[in-house]
């Protein structure tokens, strides 16, 4: 077969796509800014979901679909979620065949455990390093194709731009060798962007330092839509390091960990010397029933608000104590060690302190972006799944927006990355068969000229007063304060202005390094510009979306809920029934009866609840839409909203009784 494919990014998504393309006999050029084996996917600890029902619980891909859609508050295009969940068991089997050292049952079968957002043991895992193990399995298969000369790796090459022809079709890429700054252009009939999440836009996050989001931003600035950018998942408990935020599992709270701050924020005593009377166990006070075990998003918001809104963090910093010491948790040290040893190890290694002796210091950490490059949810009508709105340009993995909706369920992203890659691969093979034409040489030389000019411009930035790394800190602080846990329009408006200001100040950076070998200061400065751009997509989406959904929490627009006693079954309300009929007509489907009819004998809905459901339906009609951002030079992005494909299930409200 003639034609080449370029894949940018060698995390799980990129490697999965590479394997599929190479398997079809099509040569692949694989680009990654670090050796692919060091991609961020190695960080995933928890596991990967597949409803294999190995524990006799009646688990089924149908239930996996429902959990995923509900968890994502119905913002994911449903046929895709359906396909992903159906395919998940096969993916696990394949990974097992590739040699992933998954944990086993005594008989030697794959073991599964329970994760957030589901009642089933659905998560396969390999010790505490599942992501690393999956990465290595795929990396090894790619190395096999590399040895067979079907894959050529360009490691330490940074993606700069897509090469687009006069008709706007993608014909290849421009990339830079970060060892010597050389820019080259590469031909391809199809390109796939698999460059992972944008954690660095938030300064510090649980992501790797390579996760700048710059590649996504670059193609966004070239006309690809950026979708659902405002949906950013924040993990409630991470260790706030000077360099990054490291994840601490929620199991610590499950085992009796208590969250507190000193009553007097200026209290400088060693925490073990602060008596209970001088401690504010704010979760226990505010939520007497659930205490420290309030749901993840509630815990995140409360901790955030104590530190950011009330300025009551430890030493005025964004930190609270998570106390699992035997004295305060009432648990035996040895038992704790046995159950939480792995978590304690991380804390001991990186915080240099022992959680059994002294309370941990934690803070919510930006963790995952549900939003990303727009790719088509359907095949047909000129569309191809995993393809962006730019012909010839595909995308897969955390960098695209599909599968998870407004919030991601734990252990679903490794799955969506691999599934996305496996979907993109064969589609690119088909695409290049029907698009074999070669582009004109001038298309490439023009792009090369453009990129070299851009590099020269940045290298020449040496008279200003700004430091790129300091400016990046400011960006991170502004984004974390206004665009993570709690969002308010006033703050978001200020944030948009701040981003404009940072963009201006960017031109005043002194790169302070014009040398050739591995010039990180220069490369980072270039990427910082793109980070600021991407931040605008996130902040503008958050500003315009006047509701609460999934990870996007805007208290000023929260629907007022009736009293607990007045809550009922949504299927008993007229508003909901009418809404479902409308959806069925619109999507040309008939949903399963269980989504529409409450079991016989269910109490009728109280008037207050009827009222609530009317408002809720209005909210759905207005906001269960995909946000699409279009980049504008020197301005704020344009935003439009598009309907979500809801062919599997009607949305249902999030009601905790």
């Amino acid at each position, binding site marked *: 077969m003639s034609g080449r494919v370029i894949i940018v990014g060698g995390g799980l998504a990129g490697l999965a796509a590479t*394997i599929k393309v190479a*398997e079809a006999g099509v040569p692949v050029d694989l680009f990654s800014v*670090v*050796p692919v*084996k*060091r*991609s961020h996917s*190695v*960080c995933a600890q928890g596991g990967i979901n597949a409803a294999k029902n190995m524990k006799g619980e009646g688990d089924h891909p149908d239930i996996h679909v429902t959990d995923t859609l509900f968890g994502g508050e119905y913002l994911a295009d449903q046929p895709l979620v359906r396909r992903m969940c159906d395919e998940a068991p096969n993916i696990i*089997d*394949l990974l*097992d*065949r*590739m*040699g992933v*050292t*998954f*944990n*086993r049952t*005594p008989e*030697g079968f794959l073991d599964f455990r329970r994760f957030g957002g589901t009642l089933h043991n659905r998560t396969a895992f*390999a*010790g505490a*390093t599942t992501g*690393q*193990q999956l990465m*290595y*399995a795929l990396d*090894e*298969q790619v*190395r*096999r194709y*590399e*040895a067979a000369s079907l894959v050529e790796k360009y*490691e330490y090459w940074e993606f700069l731009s897509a090469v687009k022809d006069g008709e706007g079709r993608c014909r290849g890429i421009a990339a830079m060798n970060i*060892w010597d700054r050389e820019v080259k252009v590469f031909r391809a009939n199809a390109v796939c962007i698999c460059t992972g999440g944008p954690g660095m836009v938030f300064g510090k996050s649980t992501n*790797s*330092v390579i996760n700048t989001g710059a590649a996504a931003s670059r193609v966004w600035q070239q006309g690809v839509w950026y979708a659902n950018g405002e949906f950013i998942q924040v993990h409630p408990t991470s260790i706030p*390091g*000077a*360099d*990054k935020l*490291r994840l601490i599992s929620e199991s610590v709270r499950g085992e009796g960990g208590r969250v507190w701050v000193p009553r007097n924020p200026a209290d400088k005593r060693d925490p073990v010397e602060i008596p209970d009377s001088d401690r504010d166990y704010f979760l226990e006070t505010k939520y007497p029933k659930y205490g420290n075990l309030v749901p993840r998003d509630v815990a995140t918001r409360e901790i955030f608000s104590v530190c950011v809104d009330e300025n009551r963090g430890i030493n005025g910093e964004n930190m609270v104590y998570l106390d699992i010491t035997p004295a305060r948790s009432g648990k035996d040290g040895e038992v704790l060690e046995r159950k939480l040893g792995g978590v304690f190890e991380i804390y001991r290694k*990186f915080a*240099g*302190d022992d959680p059994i002796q002294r309370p941990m210091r934690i803070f919510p950490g930006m963790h995952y972006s549900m939003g990303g490059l727009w790719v088509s949810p359907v095949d047909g009508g000129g569309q191809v799944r995993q393809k962006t709105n730019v012909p010839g340009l595909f995308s897969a993995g955390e960098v695209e927006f599909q599968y998870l909706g407004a919030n991601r369920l734990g252990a679903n992203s490794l799955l969506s990355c691999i599934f996305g890659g*496996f979907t993109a691969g064969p589609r690119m093979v088909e695409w290049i068969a029907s698009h074999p034409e070669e582009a004109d040489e001038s298309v490439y030389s023009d792009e090369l000229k453009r990129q070299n000019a851009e590099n020269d411009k940045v290298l020449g930035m040496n008279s200003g007063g700004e*430091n790129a*790394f*300091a400016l990046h*800190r400011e960006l991170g602080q502004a984004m974390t304060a206004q665009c993570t846990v709690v969002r308010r329009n006033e703050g978001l408006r200020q944030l948009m202005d701040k981003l404009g200001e940072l963009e201006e100040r960017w031109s005043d950076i002194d790169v*302070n*390094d014009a*040398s*050739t*070998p*591995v*010039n*990180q*200061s220069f490369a980072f400065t270039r990427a910082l510009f793109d980070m600021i751009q991407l931040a605008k997509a996130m902040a503008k989406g958050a500003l315009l979306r006047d509701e609460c959904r999934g990870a996007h929490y805007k208290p000023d627009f929260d629907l007022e809920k009736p009293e607990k006693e007045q809550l009922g079954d949504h299927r008993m309300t007229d508003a909901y029934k009418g809404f479902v009929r409308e959806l069925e007509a619109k999507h040309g489907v008939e949903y399963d009866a269980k989504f529409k009819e409450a079991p016989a004998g269910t109490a009728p809905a109280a008037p207050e609840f009827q009222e609530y459901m009317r408002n809720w339906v209005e909210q759905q009609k207005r906001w269960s839409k995909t946000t699409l951002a279009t980049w504008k030079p020197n301005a704020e992005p344009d935003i439009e909203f598009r309907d979500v494909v809801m062919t599997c299930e009607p949305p249902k409200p999030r009601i905790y009784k």
Partner: protein
Amino acid sequence: MADKKVHLIVKRQEGPDSAPYWEEFEVPHTPGMNVISALMETRLNPVTRDGKRVRPVTWDSGCLEEVCGACSMLINGRPRQSCSALVDNLEQPIRLEPFSKFPVLRDLMVDRSPMFEALKRIKAWVPVDGTYAMGPAEKIDPAQQQEMYKYSECMTCGCCLEACPQYNDSSAFVGASAIGQAYLFNMNPTGKTLKDDRLDEMMGPGGVVDCGNAQNCVRVCPKGIPLTDAIAAIGGQVTLHAVKRLLRQ
């Protein structure tokens, strides 16, 4: 406490062909900081201890949680990950040097591509038939999974090679990490179909016979991989393999 400082002595090198030199930095101390955050601090204002404005230091890093293998360097003479090296546990001044067994690209960053080449050499993969749904894999006994898991944590950081007296740019020795991987894949039910190829490689020049059994590797591996066990096991496999080959001839 407030003005506690961290004193770094960094071995610098402009590029692959330039001569190394030393520079000293002093940065504010923050509780729990690691070597990487100290380095990050120098970038905010790249001025040496004696007030000279210099180019920011270059180093390699990724995950910052000791799982990607990127950030290896010599810290006070010992090969280790700079992300998990906490400043408070180190003697000051802290001396940072690039690995000596690999070509320096710039400052603290080296080229470890020979390690990835070695993985090709020993066919460190499971030769699956294809990626289509072909049903489940063979069952694996949990004890064997535990044994395999130890080796599957190798993050190609290169600490074991830096510490090894037998590994250097003039020898062909694959080094401890690759031997560990050969052992891992020889254990896998499908991976072992390539066992003969791997053992051929291990028998030849640069194979397991080049190991002088100095055991430095196992002492420095940040993941605690029992490398010397793998070296012994592969040594045994190679002996058997040699006998088999002789008999076949």
